C-alpha cells in the first residue's frame, strides 16, 4: 500500500510584494505572476510577448546565488505560475523608488533610455538586479530585454555609468537578512492542486498518490 502523504492543503498563501504581504486565494495556481500583478493594480509590469522572449514583464525576486546566498534575480513574470511565488519576495518597478528615483531609474532618465516606455520597467528591473549583483558592466544583464524605439545605446550607457557604483541602500543592506529558503506548499483552489514539497521522498509519494500529476521544475515551459 502506498503511504498517503496528505500534506496540509491550504486555500491561500502569501508572498511579499514590494515589502508588503500579498495574500493569494481563489485563483488558479497556474495564473502567471504577470497577470496577478496587473489584475491587482501593479500595471507597471508590462506584457509584451507573454512568452519569455521580450523581457517587458521582468520583475526581481529574491533567490539564491550559486553559493546559496540571497540574491536579487531578474525573472520573466509571464513564465512564473503564481503558486511558485508562495513565500517568496517580489519587487516590481513600483517598489524601488524611495522618495526619489532609484539610481537605475535616474540613470535611464539621464541618458534618455526610455522613449515609448513600454519596455522600460522590464529594463529597470533587470538593471536593478544587476546593480546589486555587480553585473551591470556585462551586457548579459539586459540581453533578455528588447527595445524597439529608443535603441540600446542610451540604455547600455545607463547601465555602464552605474557599473562601478557599490550599492549602499536599504536593498543592499537588507539582502543579507533575507531568507530565500522555500517552504513546502500545498495550495488548492476549486479545480487545481499545486504542491511544492521540500523532500524528494514527499515528491515521490505525491506521485504515487496522484499518478497523473504533472511534474515541473519551475514551469518556464509549461506555463506557455
Amino acid at each position, binding site marked *: 500500500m502506498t503511504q498517503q502523504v496528505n500534506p496540509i492543503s491550504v486555500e491561500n498563501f502569501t508572498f511579499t510584494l514590494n515589502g508588503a504581504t500579498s495574500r493569494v486565494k481563489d485563483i488558479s495556481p497556474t495564473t502567471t505572476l504577470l497577470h496577478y500583478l496587473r489584475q491587482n493594480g501593479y500595471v507597471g509590469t508590462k506584457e509584451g510577448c507573454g512568452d519569455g522572449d521580450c523581457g517587458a514583464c521582468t520583475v526581481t525576486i529574491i533567490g539564491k546565488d550559486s553559493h546559496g546566498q540571497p540574491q536579487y534575480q531578474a525573472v520573466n513574470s509571464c513564465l512564473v505560475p503564481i503558486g511558485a511565488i508562495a513565500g517568496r519576495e517580489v519587487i516590481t518597478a513600483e517598489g524601488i523608488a524611495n522618495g526619489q528615483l532609484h539610481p537605475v531609474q535616474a540613470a535611464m532618465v539621464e541618458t534618455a533610455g526610455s522613449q515609448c516606455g513600454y519596455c522600460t520597467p522590464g529594463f529597470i528591473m533587470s538593471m536593478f538586479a544587476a546593480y546589486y549583483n555587480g553585473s551591470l558592466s556585462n551586457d548579459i544583464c539586459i540581453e533578455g530585454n528588447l527595445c524597439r524605439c529608443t535603441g540600446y545605446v542610451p540604455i547600455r550607457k545607463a547601465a555602464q555609468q552605474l557599473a562601478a557604483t557599490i550599492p549602499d541602500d536599504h536593498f543592499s543592506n537588507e539582502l543579507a537578512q533575507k531568507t530565500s529558503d522555500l517552504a513546502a506548499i500545498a495550495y488548492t483552489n476549486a479545480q487545481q492542486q499545486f504542491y511544492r514539497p521540500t523532500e524528494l521522498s514527499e515528491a*515521490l509519494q505525491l506521485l504515487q498518490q496522484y499518478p497523473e500529476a504533472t511534474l515541473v521544475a519551475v514551469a518556464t515551459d*509549461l506555463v506557455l
Partner: protein
Amino acid sequence: MIWPRRTYPVLISLEAITDLKQILQTDDYVEIGAAVPLSHIEDLLHGIFPSLDEMLHWFAARQIRNRATLGGNIGTASPIGDLPPVLLALDATLKLVSTEGDRSLPLADFFKGYRQTELKQGEIIHSVTIPKAIASGATKRLSQSYKIGKRGTDDISIVAAAFVIDLDADQKILHARLAYGGVAATPIRAIAVELMLVGQPWTIETVQSVKPALREVFTPLSDLRGSADYRKMLVGNLFEKFFVEHS
C-alpha cells in the same frame, strides 16, 4: 477572474527539493541535480565542458536561466531543446528515482519519440552525470556546440549541434559524437556517421567525405523557421565549421 493559460489538475513543483539542487564534482565526472538553475551551472562549472558553456550562453536570456533547469529541459523532451544535443555528445547519463529505487539510463536511450521519454510513472529525474574522461588512448578532446536561430539571442533554434572528437597523438579519431536538435522527433545522434569517422584521420578530407552521409542521415521537417533542405545542409556544414575551428 484571472484566467490561467493552461490548467493542470495536479502540479508538483520540484523547485524546493534540496536533494535535486546539488552539484557534485569529482575527478571523473560532474553530477548536476535536475533542479539546479542554469545560471548556477554557468557559474559553478564554467571552463569544464566548453560545449556546455557555449550553449548556456545562447540558452534563452538571464531571466530564464535564473529559473530554468537541466531536468526541465530534458524532461520536456522538445526536439529542439538546446541542452540535450550537448549532453548527448558528452555521453551524459540520467539518474531516475522512484519509490521502487534508482536507475541509471544513458541520455541517448531516454528520448523515445516526439515529447515521449523513458520516464515511467512515478519516476523523477534526479540528476545528470557527465563523465570527464576522454577516450582511452586519446591525447586530446575537441568539443563545441552551435545554435542556429533566426536571431542570435532569445530565439528557438532551427538546428542545434554539439560535437565531441577524441584524437590520439597521430590525429586519428578514436571517439566521435555528433548530436543534433531540430532534425528529428527527438534530440538525436548521427550514430552511423560517428562510426564512419572512428579510425579516420582528423582532416578536411575526412570531414568532407562524411558530409553527404550527414546530409541524408536525418529527415527533418520544413517549418516557418527553416526548410528541411536548409536543416540538412546545416547538419553537414556545422560539422565542417567545427573542423575549421578545431584543426
